[in-house]
C-alpha cells in the first residue's frame, strides 16, 4: 500500500529580493517532491543549493515566491502543524543563558505540556542524548557536540511525528555521530518521518531511505538510496580469502561467460568503523596502549 505523504512540495520557487524588491538570488526553482510517512529523507547538495531554504520554507520561516507546500496536510504557514514537528537547526540557536533542564522546560511549555509531563520528558531526553552530567550547566559552557545534543533533545520534546534535522551530525565526534544516526534510525523504526539535510554523504547513505540532490536550487536526482547507488552493469561478490590460483581460475570462469574481473583485493573497513572499534576496546581495557613495531621505531 502506498504510504501517505507527510510533506508535499509542488513547483516551489523562492527568490530572495533586496530592500527595493529587486531580484537577488533564485534559491529554489520549481522544486516538487514528496516525503512519505515513516521514511528518512535526505536533502543533499553543495553549499547554496537550496537545502536550508527548503527546510525553512517547510517550517514557515520563509515564504514561498511561488508554489505550494503542505506539511502534515496543512499549509506551511499554519502554526498548528508545529504541534507534531521537531526541528533541529543547523547551528545552535538555543538560549545560551539557560541550562539543559531549563531549555527543555521552556520548549515543553511552548507545547502547552504540564509541569509533570515536562519534567518526565526532560529527564528522558537528557538521558537519551547523554547530558546527565551537564544538565545544570548553562549552554554557553557547552562544547559544540553537547550543544547539538541538547538541540536534538529540544527537537524531540513533543515526541514529534515529523523531525526536520539540518546538518544533524555537524560538530559531533564519530561517537556522537554514530549515536545521532542510530537515533535517526530508531525514530524511523518508531514510525516517525525524518527529513535531514547534510554535507556528509556517508551519513546520509547510512540512514536515508530516499534522497533528493539539489543543485543551484533545482532538483537533480530523486529516489531511494539503493536504486540511485546501484551499478546495474557490475556484480559484486564477497568471498573468504582466495589464493592467487583461485583468482586465476575465477578469471577463467568469468571469461567463459564474457565477463571480466575488474578489481580484486582485501575489502577495507570504513575509518568510522575502525575508530569506533578502537574506542570500544579502550573503554574495555583502559590500560592498553599502542606500541610501535620495530620498523616504526626509527
Amino acid at each position, binding site marked *: 500500500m502506498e504510504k501517505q505523504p507527510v510533506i508535499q512540495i509542488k513547483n516551489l520557487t523562492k527568490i530572495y529580493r533586496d530592500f527595493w524588491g529587486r531580484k537577488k538570488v533564485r534559491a529554489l526553482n520549481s522544486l516538487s517532491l514528496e516525503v512519505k510517512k515513516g521514511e528518512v529523507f535526505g536533502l543533499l547538495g553543495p553549499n547554496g543549493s537550496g537545502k536550508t531554504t527548503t527546510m*525553512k520554507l517547510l*517550517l*514557515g*520561516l*520563509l*515564504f514561498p515566491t511561488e508554489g505550494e507546500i503542505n506539511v502534515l496536510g496543512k499549509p506551511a504557514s499554519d*502554526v*498548528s502543524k*508545529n*504541534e507534531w*514537528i521537531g*526541528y533541529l*537547526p543547523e*547551528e545552535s*540557536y*538555543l*538560549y545560551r*543563558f*539557560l541550562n539543559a533542564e*531549563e531549555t527543555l522546560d*521552556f*520548549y515543553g*511549555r*511552548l*507545547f*502547552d505540556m504540564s509541569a509533570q509531563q515536562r519534567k518526565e520528558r526532560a529527564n528522558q531526553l537528557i538521558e537519551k542524548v547523554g547530558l546527565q552530567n551537564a544538565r545544570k550547566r548553562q549552554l554557553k559552557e557547552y562544547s559544540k557536540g553537547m550543544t547539538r545534543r541538547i538541540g536534538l533533545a*529540544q527537537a524531540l520534546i*513533543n515526541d514529534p511525528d515529523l523531525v526536520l534535522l539540518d546538518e544533524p551530525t555537524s560538530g559531533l565526534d564519530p561517537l556522537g555521530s554514530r549515536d545521532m544516526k542510530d537515533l535517526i534510525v530508531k525514530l524511523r523504526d518508531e514510525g516517525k518521518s525524518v527529513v535531514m539535510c547534510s554535507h556528509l554523504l556517508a551519513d546520509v547513505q547510512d540512514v536515508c531511505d530516499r534522497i533528493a540532490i539539489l543543485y543551484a536550487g533545482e532538483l537533480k536526482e530523486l529516489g531511494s538510496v539503493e536504486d540511485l547507488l546501484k551499478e546495474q552493469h557490475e556484480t559484486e561478490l564477497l568471498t573468504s580469502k582466495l589464493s592467487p590460483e583461485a583468482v586465476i581460475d575465477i578469471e577463467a570462469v568469468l571469461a567463459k561467460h564474457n565477463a571480466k574481473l575488474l578489481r580484486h583485493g582485501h575489502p577495507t573497513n570504513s575509518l568510522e568503523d575502525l575508530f569506533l572499534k578502537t574506542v570500544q576496546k579502550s573503554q574495555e581495557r583502559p590500560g592498553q596502549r599502542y606500541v610501535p613495531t620495530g620498523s616504526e621505531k626509527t
Partner: protein
Amino acid sequence: MTFDHAPFLFGPALLHWVLVFGCFAGIVFSVSVLIALGVYGASGPTAVMGRVWQGLHDFLGISPRRIWAISLLTIKEAVRRKALFVFVVFASLVMFAGWFLESDLRADLQVKNAVSFALTTISWLTLPVVLLLSCWGLPEDIRLRSIHTIVTKPVRRNEIVMGRILGFSIVASLIVSMMGVVGYVWIRRQVPNNAELICRVPVYGELSFLDREGNLTDKGVNTGDIWEFRSYVEGGTRSSAVYKFPMDKVTDNVRFESRFEAFRTHKGRIGQSLLVRYVLVNPTKGLRVPLGSFEVAEFGLNEKDVDRQISFFDEDKNDNRTVDLFDDVVDQNTLTVEVQCLDAGQYLGMARPDMFIRMPDRSFVVGYFKAVVGVLLLSIFLISIGVTSSTFVKGPVSILLTFTVLLVGQGFREFMLKLITGEQKGGGPIESWYRLITHMNDTLQLPDNFGVKLMQSIDNLFMGGLWLVQHLIPDLSYFVMSPYVANGFDVPWSTAMAKCIAMTVGYLVPCLLVGYYSLTLRELEAK
C-alpha cells in the same frame, strides 16, 4: 507643575479611543486591500481578509502557558544579563545622596527635595534599562536566530509579543519595587525632626469671577502678566473669585487651603499683607455667611478651618446668627465660596488649583507608592512601544524611535503644537532654511511667487506629518507624579492614576496588533 488636571472620564475616553482606533484600522485595511489588488490582482482582497481572519483566530487561540513561558524566558534573560544591577547603582546613589542635598533649607523644602530626588532617580534609572531591554530583545533573537526555535513550535506571533511585553514589565516591576522600597526607607531617614511626610487630599472647585459691579465673568482682571494662569480680583470693590466645591460628605469641619498672589498698585499698609475674606454663599436661599478676614500669606499657605456650626453677624438682619454648614450653606451638594480682597487699589490673583478643601490626609506611603506606580506605568508604556518597534526595525533604530516617543511625549508636544498652529513663527522646515540662508527674520513677509508657494505647500505636508505625530504621541508628563508627592499631595485617582492606566492600556492594544502583524508578515531571517 499644576495639579489642576482635568478629571478622567472613562466613557468619553473609551468612545474617543474606539473612534480613533477604528479610523486607523479602517485606513490600514483599505490601504492594504488597494496594495494587495495592485500586487496580487483579484485575489488580493481575499488574501487580506484571510490575514484578518487568521489574526482573529490567533488572538482567540492564545495560550497563557506559552505567553508565560516566553515571559519567564525574558525575565531570566534580563536577570542573567545583569539588568537588576541597576538597583546597585540606585543603592549607591541614595547612600551618598544625603551629603549633597541641602540641609539648611526650610523643613518642608528638605522633604520636597528628598522625595523628588528619590522618585526622579527611580525614574531616570529604570527608563533607560527598560528602553534598552525592550528594544534589544527581539532583534537579538532574530539576529542570533534563537527565534527559529520558538516559531517552529506551535507559538503564535502575538504570543511572542505578549510574552515579551509581560516579561519586561515584570522585570520593570521588580526593579521599580525594589527601588521604591529602598527609596521610601531613605526618605524616612532623610526627613528632619521638625518636618513630617504628609499626603493631603484636595478637593478642587470650579472657578468663576465677579467684576467690580458684581456681574459674573469667566476671568478676572489681567494685571499685565503674559502668563494668564491667574486672574485678579480688585480690592475694595464687589469683585471676587467664586469657587464652587463639590460637597458629598458631611464632616465636623472643613479646612480651606489656598495660595494667592498679590499685585499691588501702591505700598498699602507697611508691614501688613493684603486682607482677604471668604464669604460662604447659598444662592438658592440668598444666604451670605462672611467669615473673618485674614492677612494673606504671600508665597505661602493660607489655612482656614470652618466648623460645621458657624456664628456670624448678619448685616442684612443686623443680628448675630448661627447656621449649619451642611444644612444651610451647602446647596445641591455644592459649597460656594467667594474670595474678596479688602484692600482698595490692590489686586489678588488666583487660579482654580490655588484654593481647595483639604480632606482627611492619607498615609504618605500611599501617595509615594502611587507615584512609584506612575514610573512603572510609564515603563510599561515604553516597553510596549519598544517591543512593537523592535518587531519591524533593528535594535538601535528601535531604541531611537522609542526614545523619541519619550522625549516628545514628555516635553515637546506643546512646541510641536505651536509649530502646527503657526503660533511659532518662522514656517516649516524649508521656509526656515530659506529664511536662514536669505537672512529674513520671521517678521518679514515672503515674496508672493510660485517658488514660495511651492515651498509652503511642501512645508504643509511636513506639518501634516508633524500633526499626526503630535496626535499619536501622548502627553507622558501625566506619568510623572513625583511633584504631587513632593509637594505633600496625594496622587489623585481620577486625574492622574486612571488617566495613566487608560493611556497604557490604550496604547498596548494597538501595539499588540502592530507587533503581531509585523512578525507575521515578515520572514524571520536575520538580514
